[in-house]
């Protein structure tokens, strides 16, 4: 029976080429937009280089104190992380790193903007970086205050040109010479928590990190649990610790700081009242709704028009006893076949679109691609779209009276 529906659908599509073209154009373009959006969201959510063991990690990124009429929020201080966070019992490993900041270096009459980051040695144990060459700096080197650095592949290319191996070479940045100890595959800038070009031991910081005794500063911390089952207990321990903290100033009444999973940490706005998760979800839903609404209505219009064309067929089938349900079902399936066909075309279109976006200088190291998740979303979008635009016309069609239908032809 389905084979029959398929044959009829193809025959109908062939009948009025102009309408078929409009339908396919409308659907495939809409689905292309959705696919590009899905590819982008998927990249942000599931790009797990270098934090591949995400299920075992909790991220501490912001510290907010608020009171009536005042609010202060930001990243954390080194002092806070070392004194309060490092004293937690549950985490198997804890690392501390600064947020990335920019500086310049000048080499061969060229200016390079370097984004650098101070880290500890545990950073390299918890995160799983792909080392192109060399290795990370050790805890011993960190303690000795040796001037060593891990650099990104991008920086290597920019600074050293086509030199095959740069381990042991010196790189000058921020007016200091560092010996390169390793080169990592560049972390994409969408993973802003860990992206950077130059990674330095925190002991090389030009100021005394421990002198800032506030809660807020320029650092973040990551907790690693021994197993993913341990994560909730680790989270609870952190919240308990945070609940006991004294306010830094009398004008504050609340402290908000969280050990988050990746997505929450990624979308945290730094303002407890504004959930980044909610904002992202709302924005995407409204966008998707707007994108789908207009084409769907357009398609309903076209479909309703096309039914009239088929009134003789409907009349004959009804006269021979087909029920309204069967007819409506047939029409919906035909519409789904059309949407799926357009879905296939939209895969080709979005491959082209992604190629264009990847080559455009929008974001560094942004390589969008289609994968299983994105294709799943596409399939879902096709189904939703097919139903959205097919149900009303099908209902209209199935209600047509036999006499009218036969007479109209």
């Amino acid at each position: 029976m389905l084979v029959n529906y398929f044959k009829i659908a193809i025959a109908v599509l062939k009948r009025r080429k102009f309408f078929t073209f409009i339908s396919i154009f409308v659907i495939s373009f809409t689905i292309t937009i959705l696919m590009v959006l899905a590819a982008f969201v998927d990249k942000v959510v599931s790009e797990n280089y270098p934090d591949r063991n995400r299920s075992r990690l909790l991220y501490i990124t912001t510290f907010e104190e608020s009171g009536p009429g005042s609010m202060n929020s930001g990243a954390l201080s080194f002092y806070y992380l070392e004194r309060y966070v490092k004293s937690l019992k549950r985490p198997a490993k804890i690392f501390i790193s600064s947020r990335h900041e920019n500086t310049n270096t000048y080499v061969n009459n060229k200016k390079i903007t370097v984004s650098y980051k101070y880290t500890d040695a545990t950073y390299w144990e918890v995160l799983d970086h792909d080392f192109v060459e060399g290795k990370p700096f050790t805890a011993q080197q960190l303690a000795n205050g040796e001037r060593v650095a891990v650099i990104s592949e991008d920086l290597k290319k920019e600074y050293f040109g086509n030199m095959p191996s740069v381990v042991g070479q010196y790189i000058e940045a921020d007016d200091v010479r560092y010996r390169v100890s390793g080169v990592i595959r560049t972390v994409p800038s969408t993973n802003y928590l860990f992206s950077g070009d130059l990674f330095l031991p925190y002991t090389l910081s030009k100021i005394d990190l421990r002198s800032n005794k506030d809660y807020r500063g320029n650092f973040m911390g990551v907790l690693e649990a021994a197993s993913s089952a341990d994560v909730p207990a680790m989270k609870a321990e952190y919240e308990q610790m945070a609940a006991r903290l004294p306010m830094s100033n009398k004008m504050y009444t609340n402290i908000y700081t969280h050990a988050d999973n990746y997505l929450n940490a990624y979308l945290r706005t730094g303002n407890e009242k504004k959930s980044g998760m909610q904002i992202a979800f709302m924005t995407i839903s409204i966008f998707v709704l707007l994108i789908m609404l207009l084409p769907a209505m357009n398609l309903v219009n076209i479909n309703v028009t096309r039914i009239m064309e088929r009134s003789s067929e409907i009349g004959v089938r009804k006269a021979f006893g087909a029920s309204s349900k069967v007819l409506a079902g047939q029409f919906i399936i035909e519409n789904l076949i059309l949407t799926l066909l357009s879905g296939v075309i939209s895969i080709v279109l979005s491959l082209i679109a992604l190629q264009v976006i990847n080559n455009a200088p929008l974001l560094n190291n942004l390589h969008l691609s289609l994968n299983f998740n994105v294709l799943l979303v596409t399939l879902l979008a096709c189904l939703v779209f097919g139903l959205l635009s097919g149900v009303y016309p099908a209902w209209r069609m199935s209600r047509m009276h036999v006499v009218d239908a036969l007479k109209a032809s």
Partner: protein
Amino acid sequence: MFRHLFILMWNKKKQNFLLMTEMFVSFLVVFAVLTISVYYYGNYRKPIGLDYENVWIVDYSNPLRTDNKDSIWLFYDALQKTVKALPQVREISFTSNNVPFSSSTIMNGVNNRGKNISSINWYNIDDNYQNLLNIKLLEGRWFNKQDAVARVKPVVINATLREELFGNQPAVGKQYGDDKQSRVIGVVQDTKMKGDYTIAGKAVYNRVDTGSLGGMQKMLVRVTPDADITFEGRLYKTVSTVMKTANVEIQHLTDRRKYMNNMSLMPMIILSIVAGFLIINVALGLFGVLWYNINKRRGEIGLRRAVGATGSSVSMQLVAEALILSTFSIIVGVFFAVQFPLLNVFDLPAGVYVMAIVLSVLFIYLLVLICAFYPGRQAAAVYPAVALHED
């Protein structure tokens, strides 16, 4: 004649209702895109108000940490002299973090005669700032050394804030502020600090005193046009040698401006591409539906031609039908669109919305006219004999 058209349309209300909804939603999409475009274009036409060529931003986080005001002053004085001694440096000015085309914003509010004025951009700058950026003085003067001992705090405000505070009257010498008085010594032209497509907003400039120089992390340097990358490297070395604990970064205002403009335009471009294709969708759909309907009505058209209607009056009828349909959708659309200026949803000037509404109405009419024109022409070409014979 209109009455007759209404009856014809009422007979097909279900189908027409769908078409109208589609036109209504298209109207809203076009309205959204045009509102942003009109707003950006309006901002773009205003002068930028400052001279950004050959100006560099030197960012030095973590400068010296001391609370001794004298040593801070000595330090910055030495820094200024060292940098100014470089051959390609023309002028140098210390400023708060909100330099031109940066993403940093510092805002403040003030109570004046019981009225609260909020979102005033707050700039901490020194005596060289106006000269360095070439900001035009509209009245009064810029800061100088004598302001350090002024009894009432001297400030320079921009034209937008002057209008808010004093209407269109001259402001120099006047004081404002209920809690803490400030005395206006000068008024400068508006400057678009976030790029070409943004508004200047209200701004107040405060002369930085020796005590707060320690918290400053940025300076602007105007260089000669021949300053190249080698010189930039030298400047970089000079600054980092003087400020041992600082992390130094140099950026060019021209690059920052380009970056900020891209940040404004990017959402606009994405929105326009998406809206553009949505409109093509709708246009194709409308065209198809109208064309099909006319083919269905060959009998009716044939009859009209047979009893003496001319071809052009037939096509006029069909185009008029489409336009009446779109008028209904536009009325509903305008009803929703005028809520934006009435409720002041996005804090845009009402003129922008009005302009956008007018343009959207024209756009939808044009779209419908184009889509209805060809089917109308086809209808005019119907031969009565052929059409009636078919029936």
